[in-house]
């Protein structure tokens, strides 16, 4: 991330129920607290029933459109591998990709009618070389004792790319948005995610 006032584009994708909305709320609060203008867009409703979900997240000195132009994504952070691949064409050539190494089978695959794409990580590496990071988000969350915090693990991983923000600013945003009884587990998840990625 640079400080030149340019608008930065973060695209989050996953499956309904994986917590993309909370993740993007934390991202938003942390960046607002750091003085940026932020806008984000997501679709609610039908999409929550196990369908694919996306969040367009933008920040900078002044943001106009909440939606990102296709091909302009700086950071693709995906909570599920197929849902990462679905948006590969949205990423800039120099864009960075953070993948949660986790698959949820869509109905056509469950029914045996289609195959789940193989080697998603390899496909990304082919096009984005060293700008691909893989995080065991669900495994880390499970180890921490709550599979639900995989989303915060992913935010922790992503936080490494935002050098202007120190860990305390992220943790502050988590504490601002979550009830007190959830602070400990989510801060742990954030820290685990942050140390899971070396930039």
């Amino acid at each position, binding site marked *: 991330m640079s400080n030149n006032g340019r608008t930065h584009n973060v695209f989050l994708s996953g*499956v*309904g129920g994986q917590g993309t909305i909370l993740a993007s*709320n934390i991202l*938003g*609060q942390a960046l*607002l607290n750091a003085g940026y*203008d*932020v*806008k*984000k*867009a*997501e*679709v*609610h*409703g*039908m*999409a*929550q*029933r*196990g*369908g*694919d979900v996306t969040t367009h997240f933008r920040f900078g000195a002044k*943001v*106009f*459109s*909440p*939606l*990102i*132009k*296709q*091909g*302009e994504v700086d950071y693709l952070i995906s909570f599920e591998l*197929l*849902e990462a*691949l*679905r*948006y*590969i*064409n*949205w990423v800039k*050539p120099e864009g960075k990709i953070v993948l949660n190494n986790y698959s949820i*089978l*869509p*109905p*056509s*695959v*469950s*029914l*045996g009618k*289609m*195959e*789940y*794409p193989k080697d998603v990580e390899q*496909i990304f590496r082919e*096009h984005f070389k060293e700008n691909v990071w893989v995080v065991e988000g669900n495994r880390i969350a499970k180890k921490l004792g709550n*599979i639900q915090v995989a989303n915060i693990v992913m935010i922790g991983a992503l936080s490494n790319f935002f050098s202007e923000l120190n860990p305390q600013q992220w943790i502050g945003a988590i504490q601002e948005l979550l009830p007190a009884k959830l602070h400990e587990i989510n801060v742990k998840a954030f820290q685990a995610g942050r140390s899971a990625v070396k930039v």
Partner: protein
Amino acid sequence: MKRILQGNAAIARGAWEAGVVVGCAYPGTPSSEILAELSKYPEVYTEWSPNEKVAMEVGHGASVAGGRSIVCMKHVGLNVAADPFMTISYTGVKGGFVVVVADDPGQHSSQNEQDSRHWTRFGKVPMLEPADSQECSDFTRIAFDISERFDTPVLVRSETRVSHCDSPTVLGERREAKIPKGLDQKDAPKQVMVPMYARVRRVLVEERIGKLASYADEEFPYNSMEINDPSIGFISSGITSLYVREVFPQYSFLKLGMVWPLPRKLISGFCKKVGKVIVVEELDPFLETEIRAMGCMVHHGKDLVPAIGELTPTIVEQALTTAVNGKDYVPPRILVQTDDLPKRPPNLCAGCSHRPLFYALKKLGLFVFGDIGCYGLAAAPPLSAMHFSTCMGAGVGGAYGAGKVLKEEGLGKICAVLGDSTFLHGGIGPLMDAVYNGGYSTTIILDNRITAMTGQQEHPGTGYSIHGDPASTVDYEQIARAIGVKHVRTVDPYNIQETMDVIREEVNRNEASVIITKNSPCMLLRRARPRERFEYPSYTINGDTCMGCRLCLEVNCPAISWAPSIGKTKAGRKRKGTVHINRDQCVGCGICMQICEYEGIVPRAERGE
């Protein structure tokens, strides 16, 4: 202080700051969060109304009594509420009266894509259109002032990308409105819309729209003009204005915060200042038509900008690049043909009571007149068990009407299905018609104890108010009987055989009937403890007996998947694979176990796992 607010939360905030005292709505994506957010402010009375027409009437009554009130709905909700809305335009208001209507371009969660801006011209009421959360708050606040000053309801139009976008919003203080509360019988000529009074109001409505047009031009603070490179001037409103700014930042812009009546002087002035005028708007050519009718030259509009689906910055760039700068549009590079990837449509939750019910309907081979709710997901394969769906409550009348044509031929072949909230919204009237006029349709009410699809809102059948306080509870059986339905049955949808038997009996009966599902709460409704009714916590495959027949896959449960592997059962029968039940996702509803003909699905506990 600034906070990141969702557009809907910002509308609620703006209403609260404006001193609103009553808020009513029926939930509908993308509008639902407005009332949910407003209900958090203790100064405001809020309610989930049974439908949008009722919400509109309650809000109007509150306004007549001198309270500022707001009613909120999705675009199709205003169709339901159109009857009072069109005449409230005549009566005007006392306390400020704001109607929020949220469109859904692209039909993310809707049955059609209508452009609500047409209501503003049709109803002769002003409309404001915010673009982001700050404007959602600001425009809602000023809408109350406009409403009182011009004695008119005011429409605030949102849409998916405004309602469901989050951006920083300044939080202001609440200011109580100064309108005196009370009713005055002398106001009857203003409030009683019989012809002799309504004709008088009709004239005033026209005068009002003239005054509002002057206001739009001379006073409304949120129409903004920005002249940069004057060779091209974009006219737009709402979210579209942000897309245009994003894609072509160097040119000139006229952003309309008020889309009706239009600021004619401002528009013609802008057209004179710029070279080429391009109108960019989502859905219909509403502004374009009006601006052309004013005699202004519009160089481009719907000739290039799509009128179907939602716009995005990508689409705006693709549509207009050549017209704006003469260059060819360069599409983003394609690394992978993502259209070929497996799709991930939404699905009924694991354990959902709609799944066995629709499986039963499919087995019975019925033509299902469906309705609006999560159960619309049953229309998709492999269930494919819904064959008709238009709007709230329409399946009940549809099934009855079809029976009038098919007569004896249709007996045993038709049923109507709708949810509890949908039944209360729009299903009682057509049921009354079916029984009064001698129809034979069977209406199945899927009672999952909540308005589920829009995100768990209370309704008059749940027993709780918007705040979760105990409230009276509608008794569906008694309603049906009171209307005159003689055959009212209940079924446990998790017992497929019993459900099929009851439905078969009722659809073959030459009289109207009602079947209500019992003990079938939404899987997401925590207070109903939906999993407690299941005998076992989860099920698993018996690898010795599973034949790999795929029968259980027909219910499209998210927990069940196909695992191909050539092999044999313990008894030596060949199979191409088995199914697999995901332990984390299975909730133990046992539907797959009931369907299995080979005892291939068993409670997990019995397997000693």
